């Protein structure tokens, strides 16, 4: 047995630092007496500082790598791919904390745990995208998931919030059990948990003859667990309820950070661990992407609640991203990276708008609450319109560019029918996104319509997201170059 060099721990310093910062905040938070604005502000400033320092450490220790470096006896890998996701996830976590301004403080809950849990979940995500062994991937996935369950139920005196947390917990635990069962079958067939050697070991096991059932069952169950995490039909049942019931900043966190990290792991496992089975998972992914796009968009049509509509829209968007995953080409892969990066800003902005309209007892969620918003809050309405156009895929927004590249990659790789379904379902989605724009710009407000919350920081965050969404539509070049430089080797 070889000793682990101390250098490996130093290279993992960003994640270790973030975990320690979360624990420190947990302890410090229990001493604070102020559950209102001041304690909250202090905690959020500390959390953002911790995330920024982690980002700096990631740049310093893990950035600029041409050749992947495997550390800690093959548990984690540092490569350009992981670097891209880590920066994106840190940005997503920071946006979540900005969105939490006022909202959580007004709920009257203690702030320390809230921010500590966001830091823990982010730690899990950072480790996840670096994971190079099914064991380390599963543990980091659980760290993310367990923190998310608690965050979803953070408003513990609101029945909806705890109900959402319980549904998330039960289905999440079920899916992680399924994922783990898949891992154990693959281990039985191949004797290895490392992604690097898994694909070759799989081909040996299948060639030997007796391992075929184990391999087939194993990778299917593993894929099911991963598809649950990214909320793909038919593993999406938890999504609408959890998105509606969870505190809105946390909904945004689940929709951007949790989803991006899960997609990063899904792509890494499919491309590196299951490379031998590429045609198999391509077909499975194509089938699920088609069902997901159709069902997600059709279900979103009938929604009256904006958070629920955004939940179904996030399911549909998982379907679009799967198009890029299934191509197994370089173009498809960087399109996935670009799309999820753009989606992070679009969705954070859209949920930020919901936060600004929300009051206690969950007002500001129905379509009617948005009536006449253009007159009452022109800036907010304009931002929301940009996000909705981007989600539909209308230029000049980042959503349009991302979708074009995803569909183009699918057509080039010969998956024309999937791209056609994508275009058609995007057309369907125009209807329900437009419904909200019509409410904001053409309907008049009634007296009962809630006024937007006055929170300058939150408004600035939403504005920033809107600006980035448009910038990504007009000047997608730099991000595309960045994504092209962060690819995994093809299966």
């Amino acid at each position: 047995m070889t000793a682990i060099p101390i250098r490996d721990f130093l290279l993992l310093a960003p994640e270790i630092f973030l975990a320690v910062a979360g624990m420190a905040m947990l302890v410090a938070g229990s001493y604070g007496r102020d559950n209102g604005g001041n304690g909250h502000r202090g905690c959020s400033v500390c959390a953002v500082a911790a995330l920024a320092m982690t980002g700096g450490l990631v740049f310093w220790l893990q950035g600029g790598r041409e050749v992947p470096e495997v550390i800690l006896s093959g548990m984690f890998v540092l490569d350009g791919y992981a670097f891209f996701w880590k920066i994106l996830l840190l940005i997503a976590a920071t946006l979540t904390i900005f969105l939490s301004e006022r909202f959580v403080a007004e709920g009257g809950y203690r702030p320390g745990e809230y921010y500590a849990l966001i830091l823990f979940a982010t730690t899990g995500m950072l480790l996840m995208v670096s994971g190079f062994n099914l064991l380390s991937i599963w543990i980091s996935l659980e760290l993310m998931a367990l923190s998310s369950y608690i965050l979803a139920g953070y408003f513990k005196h609101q029945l909806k919030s705890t109900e959402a947390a319980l549904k998330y917990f039960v289905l999440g635990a079920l899916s992680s059990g399924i994922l783990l069962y898949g891992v154990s079958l693959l281990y039985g067939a191949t004797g290895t948990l490392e992604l690097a050697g898994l694909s070759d070991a799989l081909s040996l096991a299948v060639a030997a003859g007796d391992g075929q059932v184990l391999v087939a069952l194993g990778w299917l169950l593993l894929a099911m667990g991963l598809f649950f995490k990214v909320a793909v039909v038919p593993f999406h049942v938890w999504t609408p309820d959890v998105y509606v019931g969870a505190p809105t900043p946390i909904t945004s966190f689940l929709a951007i950070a949790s989803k991006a990290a899960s997609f990063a792991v899904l792509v890494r496992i499919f491309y590196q661990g299951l490379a031998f089975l590429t045609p198999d998972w391509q077909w499975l992914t194509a089938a699920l992407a088609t069902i997901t796009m159709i069902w997600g968009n059709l279900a979103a049509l009938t929604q009256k609640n904006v958070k629920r509509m955004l939940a179904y829209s996030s399911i549909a968007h998982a379907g679009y991203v799967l198009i890029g995953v299934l191509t197994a080409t370089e173009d498809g892969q960087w399109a996935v990276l670009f799309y999820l990066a753009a989606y992070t800003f679009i969705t954070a902005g859209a949920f930020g708008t919901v936060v600004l309209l929300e009051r206690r007892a969950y007002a500001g969620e129905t379509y009617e609450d948005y009536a006449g918003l253009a007159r009452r809050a022109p800036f907010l309405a304009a931002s929301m319109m940009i996000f909705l156009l981007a989600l539909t895929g209308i230029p000049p927004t980042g959503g349009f560019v991302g979708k074009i590249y995803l569909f183009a990659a699918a057509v080039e790789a010969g998956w024309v029918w999937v791209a056609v379904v994508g275009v058609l379902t995007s057309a369907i989605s125009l209807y329900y996104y437009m419904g909200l724009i019509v409410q904001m710009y053409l309907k008049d407000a009634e007296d009962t319509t809630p006024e937007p919350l006055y929170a300058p920081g939150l408004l600035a965050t939403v504005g920033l997201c809107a600006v980035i969404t448009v910038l990504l539509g007009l000047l997608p070049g730099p991000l595309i170059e960045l994504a092209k430089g962060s690819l995994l080797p093809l299966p």
Partner: protein
Amino acid sequence: MSIPVSVPIQWYFLLAGALFVIGALGALSRRNGITIFLSIELMLNSVNLLIVAYARVVGERTGDLLTALNGQILVLFVLAVAAAEAAVGLALFIAIFRGRRTIDVNRLNLMRW
């Protein structure tokens, strides 16, 4: 690693598979929160059983102690995570019970499934 496995690996496979299916069905069909939680624990433990059995087989097949250890270490981690999951799950049940005086999941219907 020269001791032969007296019970064939297929038996472990079948037992673990049966436990896993019982757990999954229980988690999906039971109404009481605690029973659902126990079913999920059953699923995780069936995985543990399977991994330990496979670790033995894999170790014999490759003659490499380290590959066998990989599986056993995985089991230890699964146990630790299951304990963490229990803490979170039971805390959630308590929070729900305080609000509603029941943990019957069929009555958790503020939002449609």
